[in-house]
């Protein structure tokens, strides 16, 4: 269905060829997305979350840090005593939970995405180098990976966050630096299997340079699983950030994150359930959306689905 129009030959030999884009245009992406129900759902959840994060300051009905001592522990609007101006109720200091969730989106997404980008880049480089070059490169890099794995990552993060001032930046760096090892291992094992395939040997026999082989043959064949793992670990990183903030080592007040909100609500869980429940739901929905999107990406990035897939992922 793609490229048939220009495939017709003119006088035997086509003079020039319009280069078809590797993964097609925007239209094709939209069609592929709409073919998959979970993909569509995931995409829209993520889209909404991203938009909320970007425009948080414009959406919030109240200042998320503003205390309202006369309106403490208000329930959500549909319950007795609730108020429509505080849609999801207020916490123990009278702060609007809805506004705080909106602002918390920023931290969660920033930490989730950028620490995964950081970890992914390091892991990809190390994994490709170790897997492709093998021998002593592999030995040295993998021993480093092993020693990183031997350190309990939560302990490492706790120590670093105790030494350096917790901020979004330190969170990103510290989570990125602890998580790259898992990418490195996955990437390495994928590279090991790809580099034994005949097309890589063929490329060697042609005389293609190692760097070109890595770029053209190795990376394109491991990238889809890499993207899927990355998408899925954005989800786990959001949860990790929440747990760190829950432990009091993440985002510090007056900044807001979903994890920190869970901490705040913990003591009130029996009496005022809404304080902890809504940020929890926010985490769940976001993570679910990212996972859906990741699953869809895995299906779409496989060129075997490129032309034929009609059914949806």
């Amino acid at each position, binding site marked *: 269905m*793609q*490229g048939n129009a220009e*495939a*017709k*030959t003119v006088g035997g*030999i*086509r*003079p*020039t*060829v319009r280069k*078809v884009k590797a993964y097609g245009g925007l239209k094709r992406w939209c069609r592929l997305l709409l073919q998959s129900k979970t993909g569509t759902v995931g995409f829209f959840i993520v889209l909404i979350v991203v938009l909320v994060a970007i425009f948080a300051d414009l959406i919030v009905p109240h200042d998320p840090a503003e205390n309202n001592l006369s309106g403490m522990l208000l329930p959500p609007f549909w319950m007795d005593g609730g108020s429509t101006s505080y849609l999801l109720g207020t916490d123990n200091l009278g702060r609007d939970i809805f506004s705080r969730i909106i602002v918390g989106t920023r931290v969660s997404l920033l930490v989730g995405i950028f620490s995964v980008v950081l970890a992914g880049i390091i892991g990809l480089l190390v994994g490709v180098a170790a897997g492709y070059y093998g021998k002593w490169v592999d030995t040295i890099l993998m021993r480093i990976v092993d020693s990183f794995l031997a350190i309990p990552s939560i302990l490492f993060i706790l120590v670093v966050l105790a030494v350096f001032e917790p901020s979004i930046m330190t969170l990103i760096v510290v989570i990125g630096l602890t998580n790259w090892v898992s990418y490195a291992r996955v990437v390495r094992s994928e590279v090991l299997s790809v580099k034994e*395939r*005949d*097309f890589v*040997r*063929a*490329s*060697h*026999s*042609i*005389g*293609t*340079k190692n760097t*070109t082989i890595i770029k*053209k*043959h190795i990376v*394109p*064949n491991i990238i889809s699983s890499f993207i899927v793992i990355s998408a899925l670990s954005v989800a786990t990183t959001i949860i990790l950030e929440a747990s760190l903030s829950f432990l009091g080592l993440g985002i510090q007040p007056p900044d807001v994150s979903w994890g920190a909100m869970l901490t705040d609500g913990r003591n009130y869980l029996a009496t005022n359930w809404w304080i902890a429940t809504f940020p929890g739901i926010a985490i769940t929905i976001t993570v679910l959306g990212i996972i859906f999107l990741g699953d869809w990406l895995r299906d779409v990035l496989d*060129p*075997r689905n*490129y*032309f034929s897939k009609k059914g949806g992922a």
Partner: protein
Amino acid sequence: MTQQVQVKQSTIKAPLLEVKELSKHFVVSTNLFGKPKESVKAVNEVNLLLEKGETLGIVGESGCGKSTMGNTILRLIEPTEGSIFFEGQDVLNMTRAQLQEMRKEVQMIFQDPFSSLNPRMRVFDIIAEPLRTHKVANGKELHRRVYELLDLVGLDQSQADRFPHQFSGGQRQRIGIARAIALNPKLIVCDEPVSALDVSIQAQILNLLLELKEKLQLTLIFIGHGIPAVKYISDRIAVMYLGEIVEMADKESLFSKTRHPYTQGLISAVPIPDPSLREVSEDVILEKDLPDQRNLPKGCSFYSRCPFATEKCKGEKPKLKANEEGHLVACHYPLHA
């Protein structure tokens, strides 16, 4: 098939490829100090001379080292010992630049057409890769050349935009062949190029290879485990058993005056449409499997499976010797003596 003058081994003057005492031993286990304790002799002191323009077939069972040998010729696997000369140049002691030049001249066609093409690349880029690597062509010239290659191997130009998975096995093999001939090589090592294909497609690919060989004046090494395909395409055939060449001769001579019992066994294993036509007395039925390649017998490597084996075969290894017709065999008691 060709009007080629068959030249006897000893009289080849300027061979395209010369392989001397080539061995590849894969280390299975090492001792405490990292020295090899056990190794598999995949290729064992093989000598070959390849004349320009001929097709040398190499047959043998799975695991006899024929693919390993093909790979060492391209230096995809480094041999343990021996030397390889391509157009008089020592392949194993080449500088980077020399090796790169040789990579233009020697190409390979692979067995599995599903693994030999990058699933993420379009056919155009697959075929263009050697041209780009050696900066032979770019821009319009590159397009022209790739379409020319597609024509040569019998594919349609409109298929250049497709991915490998949209092709059948035979078509994929054609793409692999187009890639192999892109740089106008002198020698192509065909590593069982038809054994993964349907029988009906095999003939097409073999004919394509023959046609291209004529057109582009190629020299081929055709590795295969099926006698019929190798017989069809080759001018000269070498039979390998456990990493050694046990018989090598012109095609006609090899089949009409088979001298090694193992070769006879391979020929007998080919099913024939009417078994009553077969001279049963000549059949050698191969029994048992290959012996453990880590402990090869001291004498003739075929001793354990040979129906004619004697005490001499057990103790003394036969050397590869030629008779007056240049028919080489490594056997103490050759057939058709």
